[in-house]
Structures are given as C-alpha cells and as structure tokens.
C-alpha cells in the first residue's frame, strides 16, 4: 500500500491529467521531492528557489494542515492521503 497524493487542478496537466497519483510513504518533504522528480513541471508550484515548500501551497495529511504538524518533516504512512491545494488569499 502506498500514499495517495491528491493534486489540485493547476498541477494535473503536469501529471497527464491525473487527479490522484501514488507515492511511497515517507516525510512530506520526501514525497514532494519525489513528485517534482517524476513531474518536473510541478517544481515552481511546489518549491521555492531554495528548494523549500512554497508558502502559497496548503498541504494536508488526511485532515490535518502540515503547518500544525511537523511541516515538511511530517511523516506520511502507507494508506494515508496527502492533499495539495493552492492557498487562496487576496486583499482590498
């Protein structure tokens, strides 16, 4: 059993239109690095120039926002679901 990674609409074109892709269990950082290696078009959406997670991306392990867990070090076990969504913000 693996980890299911649920992609937002903006990333699906980089993964042949798939909504969900599979990854090996590991840390959130490992899984994102693996995604970028498989689908290089996702790189700028997910990582900044220093290779850290972009601020304007929300990542969840099952129901929890990783900002309130261990961020990129959060462990993702087999059978878990990792969801990526673009953060939505703006101003007046």
């Amino acid at each position: 059993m693996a980890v299911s990674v649920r992609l937002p609409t903006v990333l699906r074109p980089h993964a042949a239109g798939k909504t969900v892709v599979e990854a090996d269990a590991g840390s959130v950082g490992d899984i994102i690095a693996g995604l970028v290696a498989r689908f290089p078009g996702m790189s700028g959406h997910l990582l900044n120039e220093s290779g850290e997670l972009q601020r304007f991306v929300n990542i969840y392990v099952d129901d929890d926002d990783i900002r309130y867990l261990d961020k990129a070090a959060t462990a993702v076990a087999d059978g878990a679901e990792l969801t990526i969504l673009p953060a939505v913000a703006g101003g007046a």
Partner: protein
Amino acid sequence: MLSIEREIYLDIVAQALDEFPLECCGLLAGDPATGRVVRYYRCRNAAESSRVYTVDAKDQLRATRAADDDGLEIIGVLHSHTHTPPYPSPTDVAQAPDPTWHYAIVSLAHGEASLRSYRIVDGAVTEEPVVVGPAGG
C-alpha cells in the same frame, strides 16, 4: 461567464453583511465548463482583516471534499470589498493562483451590494459577465 443561483447570491451578500467590517470569503463550486455555480461554501477569513483575506486552510479542504463528493469542482473564490469598488486589487492579482478560476468580488461600498467577477491570467485581469438567476435556469 459566471452564473449564480439567486439563493446563492443572497447567501453571499448576507455573509458579507454579517462579517462586515471584516472581509468575508468563500469558495464557489460548480461546473468548470459552464461557469455555473451551484454551491457556495462560506469560509473563515483566517486573516480576520478588513483589507485582506486568506481562505482558512481547513475550510478550504472541507469545501474541496464536499464539492468532490457532489461531483463538482471548486471553480472560483468570492471575497468582499468592504469599502472599495469590486475590482481586483494588486494584492488580488499577485496572489491569484489559478488561471481557470473565477475571482468574484462583492462590494459593499456606497451602501449597496454589487457583485463582479474576473479571470486573472498571468497578471492580466479580464472582467466577465455575471448572471444571477433562478435555480436550474
């Protein structure tokens, strides 16, 4: 074009008034092909500000899953401008993540609610028509 059922439009205006003087926000779900909104998910403005908004991350996940369960997609975001016209600000444009989304703004400026919607592609803003109509129409 963005088309919104009348009940959803009224819910959006009610939320903007309820949360005034803070900006309110929520996610629009429907059919990406037609721009027809059939659900609106009120979300918490995590910024709790009258000048900026951030859709609460947990509310966003909840809305996205609810839309999925109903065979819908999140096709855009709504936020309120409490004291300025319903035109995207430089902040709105800079932070627009998705060229396929509808960026709807309800303004309460001048004591009257007005709703407009925009597409934002590579920093270029284009207004689109908004139709408020009956369910199924």
